[in-house]
């Protein structure tokens, strides 16, 4: 092992953090707790000193890539730079040390922040109100679809049991619809990546609860028929859900609310630059048009005169979706991010789109684009021809990129693109970095011809080589056991 497990380093009797002796008169545990509830065998937590713990995680971190280390063009994930001031902001004691159940009068700063950011994000999206409870994009999707369900139910419109999802959609869309109790009806994309409007017309009807749409789509392309699409759905009595995964492409240029969407979720950890944390936390606020406001999760932050209050008295609310009010610490960072830009958020999108098109322009002689037109904030290429000609697959290209110290693009997604490479540079990369990536991609393209086996056996310079994922799935080893059975 590169770094032994915490458990493997454990030695009985070691301690890192200790606690003082009780300063109050004590009771016997057996007096306080019934015997059958007292733990008989302590949890086998590792026993380590502080230096070992710190070294362990320092060493582990050094095995990991991150945006702070180098370029991370993971398509659809918007791995932009996370400003350090936002980390400081979230750690201000007045934010970080507030309890979620404090009396309202003692958290006016928090409530003002939430209310203010809600207004700003409504402006960016063209929506009327917003909830911050969802902890991630998919959580926002669930919230949004449940809002749509509540809307239909409130109108007695209970036969609508279908949600339409394009075949290019993220897996979270169909999974969300299913979690919300809906049947998923796919709609095909046309060769240019847009939704097949004619096919959509065939599908919509009295069973249509909603259409879920990502725009720009996962192909990085803006659907030119978006208004027509939302009108078709609305005319059929359905509502339109906007998956904000790709909002980084359009801030200040276009707003989901103006495209006809009734519900929007945002990913603060993508568009608003809060760090991804190795998988989370994120934040997936959901914005709605006025007709859906009554259904928003409770509580809603309202401004009453110059005070802020939590409004729990909302009889049509879908209820709660998070134990408290959402990932507040993440929201603080997003607030700071918006305020660091103001109206110049538009330039964020401008440069995100510029960067993606530059990568596309330079790489398309080597990896063919799925659709050959200007893209938005990301581009989707294919290694189909390369694979046919050399046997080197997208996976191999990705693994070889690791040797260059660059995180590979998203691969094999969207599913409709063979040997897909989904590249999202974001606006926080400069030309020199893009050039370095582009040149590595071209070098690998050449190497696939000159030395395909070397590419196929990549990576060569990483701390571990290619990992046996099949073995992991076949013989699951999902936790440490002191004495494996």
């Amino acid at each position, binding site marked *: 092992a590169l770094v032994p497990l915490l458990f493997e380093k454990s030695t009985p009797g070691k301690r890192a953090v200790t606690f003082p002796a009780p300063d109050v008169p004590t*009771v016997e545990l057996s007096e306080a707790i019934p015997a059958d509830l007292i733990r008989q065998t302590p949890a086998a*937590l590792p026993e380590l000193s*502080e230096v070992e713990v710190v070294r362990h995680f320092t060493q582990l971190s050094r095995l990991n890539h991150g945006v702070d280390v180098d370029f991370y063009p993971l398509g659809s994930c918007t791995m932009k730079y996370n400003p350090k001031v936002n980390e400081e902001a979230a750690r201000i004691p007045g934010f970080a040390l507030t309890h979620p159940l404090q009396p309202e009068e003692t958290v006016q700063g928090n409530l003002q922040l939430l209310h203010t950011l809600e207004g700003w994000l409504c402006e960016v999206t063209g929506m009327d109100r917003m909830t911050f409870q969802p902890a991630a994009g998919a959580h926002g999707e669930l919230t949004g679809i449940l809002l749509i369900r509540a809307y239909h139910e409130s109108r007695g419109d209970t036969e609508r049991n279908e949600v339409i999802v394009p075949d290019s959609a993220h897996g979270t869309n169909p999974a969300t619809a299913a979690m919300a109790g809906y049947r998923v009806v796919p709609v095909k994309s046309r060769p240019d990546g847009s939704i097949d409007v004619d096919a959509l017309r065939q599908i919509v009807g009295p069973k249509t609860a909603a259409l879920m749409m990502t725009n720009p789509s996962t192909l990085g392309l803006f659907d030119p028929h978006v208004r027509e699409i939302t009108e078709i759905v609305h005319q059929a009595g359905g509502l339109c859900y906007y998956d904000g995964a790709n909002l980084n492409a359009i801030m200040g240029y276009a707003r989901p609310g103006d495209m006809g969407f009734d519900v929007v979720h945002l990913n603060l950890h993508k568009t608003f630059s809060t760090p991804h944390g190795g998988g989370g936390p994120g934040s997936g606020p959901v914005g709605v048009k006025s007709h859906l406001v009554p259904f928003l999760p409770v509580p809603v932050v309202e401004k009453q005169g110059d005070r802020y209050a939590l409004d729990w008295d909302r009889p049509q609310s879908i209820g*709660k979706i998070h134990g408290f009010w959402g990932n507040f610490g993440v929201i603080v960072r997003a607030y700071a991010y918006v305020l660091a830009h103001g109206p110049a958020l538009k330039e964020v999108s401008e440069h995100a789109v510029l960067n993606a098109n530059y990568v596309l322009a330079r790489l398309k002689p080597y990896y063919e684009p799925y659709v050959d037109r200007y893209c938005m904030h990301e581009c989707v290429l294919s290694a189909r021809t390369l694979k046919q000609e050399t046997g080197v697959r997208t996976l191999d290209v990705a693994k070889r990129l690791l040797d260059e110290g660059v995180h590979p693009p998203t691969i094999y997604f969207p599913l409709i693109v063979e040997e897909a490479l989904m590249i999202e540079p974001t606006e926080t990369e400069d030309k020199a970095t893009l050039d370095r990536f582009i040149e590595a991609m071209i070098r690998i393209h050449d190497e696939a011809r000159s030395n395909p086996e070397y590419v196929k056996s990549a990576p060569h310079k990483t701390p571990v080589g290619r*990992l046996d994922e099949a073995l992991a799935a076949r013989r699951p080893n999902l936790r440490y056991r002191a004495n494996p059975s």
Partner: protein
Amino acid sequence: MRYVPITQADKAAMLREIGVSSTEELFAANIPAEVRLNRPLNLPPALTEMELLAHLRELAAQNAHTGEYACFLGGGAYDHYVPAAVDAVIRRGEFLTAYTPYQPEISQGVLQAIYEYQSLMCELTGMDLSNASMYDGASALAEAAGMVVNQTGRSKLLVARSVSPLYRRVVQTYMHGIGVELIEVPLDGVTLDLNRLEALMTEEVGGLLLQTPNYLGYLEKVREIEALVHAKNGLFVVAVDPISLGLLEAPGSYGADIVVAEGQGLGVPLSYGGPYLGVLATRDRFARRMPGRIAGATVDNRGQRGFVLTMQAREQHIRREKATSNICTNQALIALAATVYLALVGKEGLREVANLSLQKAHYAAQQIARLPGWRLAGDAPFFKEFTVLAPAAAAEVSRRLVDRKILGGLDVGADYPELLGGAAGSAGGPAAALSFAVTEKRTRAEIDRLVAALGEVK
């Protein structure tokens, strides 16, 4: 532009390479005029970093916080001590700014940490496997409810009324869409009514969602409850306070099928309710029903041990509408914090934290119960949180405490009017039911200050 490193010169060169004269052409080629926003965003002017921090500090100064107020609030979020090394680790850019470890060869740090997290959660709960985290305790309970429904095929679920009302509302929200009926099992005093449970727990019911210590702070009779639930082949879902597991029996030892927890107590700042950590652990036999990411050990082509995301066939990006959940982004960094926390306190430290919390809570309860007009809401055993019946309205008590730089006295009577008796607010009866939580951080002096302040309320 604040975080955009593209100079005018580079921009010009890039536009040339693309073959357009301005970025506007790129947008015009994509976005139809009918949906273009033709005005600047109506947002406040940008602040420089210096101004931004000053503004945020001003905003934060309008809050009372536990650095300056003694906190006796609980209700699912607790003011436990966070060792300094936790933040030192999670600030490392390689952890903070990575994403889900899709490329294991350059993600061994995150992957091994997840594997260790999973292992720790299994040790704590007595379960066989854990996922890599859920959003929070409430959503973990809701996902567990979904697992029960899918596993048993039964569309009714019991939920103990002693489960946090916030959690119950989240579960209700999740279950509504898939048409699952949630049936509340009432209280008998401050814990679950076992007679009513027995009556309600039928073969049509998928199982029971229980919380122990419950929202009021009291320990449920888990062994009797387990027998009743399993007698009808239901599944037994238990929500716990992970800190309590330093002293209290692991749910695995009393037959829980799924264990969920709010992991905030494990080294995570209160942060006004989030980001927190949803723990979800279960038995091997329910592995395929498990939502969320799971890391597993394997080997690389050089014969070294390594870690990968595994069992992905459950997940939305593979299985789409047939996935066990739609979860994608989770709370990985918070799970890392909990991992660091548990590594730091270790076996003995967790027991100490639990014991100190218990001892201080019992001292506080005893002292408050001695005050004229105040009494405990029940005599069931409790861990670090308890409920008292107060002679004054909740808002009044809270306000008086705030004046004394104390946060505490959670108004549980509003959610559980039955605690106030048939004639709530009637002459001579209690005016409020309030819960107090006491962690290892509270000193005797602070507790005495709380008691003195409460003593002034009559």
